[in-house]
């Protein structure tokens, strides 16, 4: 049987398919972010972020992306948005803030774009 190639490697601009490959790459980063469900973990992270990165075994690319709070870089390093949302929550970033950062606009501009989508 032939593998349906399209289903594995669709090229959708601006979209990363979070598959097994990405899940393996980002495991440590996502595991750290998953820990942030717990308030104590968030507090421990804020006391010493670098120590917390090491506790979960983040690689240099993941650490740099986290230090910069750069969501696109975190995704490239294997981050999954559902877990990254918990990281964003620590810094009180809304999904609109995160969307604005990734698309290079202000949060107000991003919100306007969403409102405009409703007028079409």
């Amino acid at each position: 049987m032939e593998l349906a190639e399209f289903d594995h490697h669709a090229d959708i601009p601006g979209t990363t398919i979070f598959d097994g490959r990405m899940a393996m790459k980002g495991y440590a980063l996502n595991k750290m972010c998953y820990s942030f469900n717990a308030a104590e973990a968030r507090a421990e992270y804020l006391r010493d972020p670098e120590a917390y990165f090491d506790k979960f075994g983040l690689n240099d690319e993941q650490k740099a992306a986290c230090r910069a709070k750069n969501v696109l870089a975190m995704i490239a390093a294997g981050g999954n948005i559902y877990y990254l949302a918990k990281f964003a929550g620590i810094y009180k970033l809304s999904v609109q803030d995160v969307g604005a950062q990734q698309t290079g606009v202000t949060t107000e501009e991003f919100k306007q774009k969403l409102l405009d989508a409703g007028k079409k």
Partner: protein
Amino acid sequence: MARIIGGITTSHIPAVGNAIAQGLFEDPYWKPFFDGYPPVHEWLAKNKPDVVINIYNDHGLGFFLDKMPTFAIGAAHEYRNEDEGWGIPQLPPFPGAPELSWHIIEGMVADEFDITSCQELAVDHGFTVPMQLFWPGLTDNPDMPPAIPISANTVQHPIPTLNRALAFGRSLRRAVLSYPKDLKVVVLGTGGLSHQLDGERAGFINREFDEYCMDKIVTDPDALTKISRMELVEKAGAQGTEFLMWMMMRGALGDKVNLLHSNYHIPISNTGAGTMLLECVD
């Protein structure tokens, strides 16, 4: 014998939980969304289901990538909501219906649908927001029935196909209808519609595709099984794949349904928000 009386779909955006907590029902941003719910409340008040099967997708509270079930069914006496990372107000535990849960699990596995059973499952906004929308007041609301959560994986590809989601619902229906007690069951399909949170395409919303899905899911859900998973990502957005929950619900409703109510509004947060009330005919 148990009967499935209908299905209700809704988006389950976390911001809705906050808007409910703040009572923003008449706020101009929120009103077009909340106006979609009174017809559902009336129907629920009239029909008073005994059990709700809440089909949602976990977003990284109940499950992590260490073990990721494709289809998981709750089999607990109660389900707790927990902190999802941003300190949302804690809700009282939701009573379960474990006897029916195990009947469904037995029935579906005998039907060769292999699922994961959960005696403990923390339920996130995907489960709790719809409960808040449909039964305001939750445990203070005497009409809120015991719940059975069912979660499908949309966190990590490979996610189930639309065809498999519909087949899941049909198998769920067979299992529920074989339950010997007289119970009225309502099935929720929560999540979606189009939205994408991640990547340079964040903020993507697709009204045309959402409206197509809302039309076909009533009259011809099998037509939707022609959509491949990558096509779903492309047209509904990376998180619009939550539409799978709607397909699972639809399968549980039988071949023919009556559309009693429908509402669609863009945007709520980053999402095209859809609400539908479908009554079973058989």
